[in-house]
């Protein structure tokens, strides 16, 4: 392909230029903007009571949704790849649904369902529960949006692994748990970790669906992205960017873990 060398170089330069311009520069801009008015302002923004509450809520929501969706992802991937059943294709498409639906619509869907005037609203208020404009609603919306990540990573990995190794384990006397721990898990662990990382990143950063169901009660139902938006709308740019820089840092760490996992899967596929 010697004659295409020029094209190759041009493409590579364009790609890097594009990434630098649209990804790296804005990212750096976030950090410079955050520190524009000095470290004291930066720290104050992060340590502010409302900011801390938003961080706590985001971590709480992530801590609930990620394990649940991981469990769901493993079960779904297992069922889809290891068993034959009717409606398998349908299940596959349903798992992808949250990717196809805009998060805003997902949020509205929950409002429609759980708000006091909604379909299940009366039942819920009778039980004295609050879902909309409170933490359960935020958890539900985040779960919906992040549902596909783990399953999508695992399905191809489990498909490639097939059933034979697991059947071998069972025929050698292993019980279901031993089989999972000693045979299934080692084969899927990198794919699983990758899915969990992506799922967490999205759970932390989810804005659209959460902004609809949360009601943005300060100090109570504000997550980090919502808090940033509020600060921004109130022209507290330095504070907004300070919290944003914290989230960006999280994203960068995620990216590094992801690269590391990819490197590991590469070297461990003997």
């Amino acid at each position: 392909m010697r004659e295409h060398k020029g094209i190759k170089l041009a493409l590579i330069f364009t790609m890097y230029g594009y990434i630098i311009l649209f990804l790296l520069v804005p990212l750096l801009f976030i950090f410079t903007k955050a520190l524009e008015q000095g470290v004291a302002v930066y720290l104050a923004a992060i340590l502010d009571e409302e900011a801390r509450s938003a961080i706590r809520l985001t971590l709480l929501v992530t801590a609930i949704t990620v394990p649940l969706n991981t469990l769901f992802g493993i079960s779904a991937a297992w069922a889809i790849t290891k068993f034959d059943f009717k409606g398998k294709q349908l299940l596959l498409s349903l798992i992808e649904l949250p990717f196809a639906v805009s998060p805003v619509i997902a949020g509205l869907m929950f409002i429609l369902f759980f708000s006091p005037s909604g379909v299940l609203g009366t039942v819920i208020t009778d039980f004295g529960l609050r879902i909309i404009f409170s933490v359960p609603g935020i958890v539900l919306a985040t779960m919906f949006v992040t549902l596909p990540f783990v399953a999508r990573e695992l399905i191809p990995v489990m498909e490639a692994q097939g059933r034979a190794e697991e059947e071998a384990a069972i025929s050698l006397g292993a019980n279901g748990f031993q089989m999972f721990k000693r045979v299934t898990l080692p084969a899927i662990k990198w794919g699983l970790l990758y899915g969990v990382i992506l799922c967490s990143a999205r759970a932390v950063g989810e804005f659209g669906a959460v902004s609809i169901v949360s009601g943005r009660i300060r100090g109570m139902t504000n997550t980090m992205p919502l808090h940033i938006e509020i600060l921004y709308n109130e022209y507290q740019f330095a504070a907004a960017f300070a919290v944003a820089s914290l989230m960006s840092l999280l994203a960068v760490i995620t990216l590094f873990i992801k690269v590391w996992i990819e490197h590991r899967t590469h070297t461990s596929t003997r």
Partner: protein
Amino acid sequence: MTIEIQNISKKYGNFQALHDINLHIPSGELVALLGPSGSGKTTLLRMIAGLESVEDGIILVDNENVASLHINQRDVGFVFQHYALFKHLTVFDNIAFGLQVRPKHKRPSAQTIAAKVDELLALVKLEGFAKRYPAQLSGGQRQRVALARALAVEPKILLLDEPFGALDAKVRKELRRWLRKLHNDIHVTTLFVTHDQEEALDVADRIVIMNKGKVEQVGAPAEVYESPVSPFVYDFLGNVNLFRGRVIDGQFSFSNQAETTNEAVGYVRPHHIKIEREKTSDAVISATITFIHTIGPIWHIEMRRDDDTYIEVELNKEEFLLLNLQVGENVYVSPKEMKVFIPEDFSI
């Protein structure tokens, strides 16, 4: 340990994979399950292992109903077609697996397990390979690890699905001889699946020939080879020439045109055909030699009959040199041995 299979049928949706299988496998035998691809061999083997549910019929291993035992308590050693070694475990851990997953009170100590693994590694001639991963082994070595892993749990019976299927011809031959020898030493009842008749004839004490989910014939290798009970078995167990004809008063005679009554087909192995230059009787067939080639000590002669069907003959060196045949020559052939089947029982 005997294996007793009674009235086993298996359906996948609307597809009948096995039809009413009855089979008795005596203790300590090495039995081949032989049949073309898709004949249901793997299905039957998996049902015996408990990897496939039994809905119709009964399978008894050592007089115990397989269906009533939990899958991981059946004491069956199963070697998978593509070995299914645990990729992320070393050879040592692969072989030790079955012992390590035992419940605490039945689990041997770490030293006992290590000793057992060493013993098995010696048995399968893989001393020094304990620390390797499956990907660092050749096909034949993986096959032997799979066997050692299955043997580690001291199974009552050993089931092997196309154990040599993925290996090249030379390794295949070596390994099957080795399996025969191993079986003579350890004597565990063994059932192995193959679609290669040579392999079955070479190693097995007994051959079960399957076709379309049914058992066609069961017998010792010589028995099934010498007296096939059906055209299918005849055809499957080696090359064969078909001669159309008719049976009158119990006597077969050749005829060229399709018969409307008493139609029959004579099956003749290539080495059971006599070639002559002169027409000695009416019961010979005229043919022209079209091709001669030799593989090792055997000469293969291909000839065309007047009705454009082909006959394949095999001669040994002496026979060939005596006749000194040339391509294009006209000769007369007659069967030295023939098996006649009436088309009604055709199941090809």
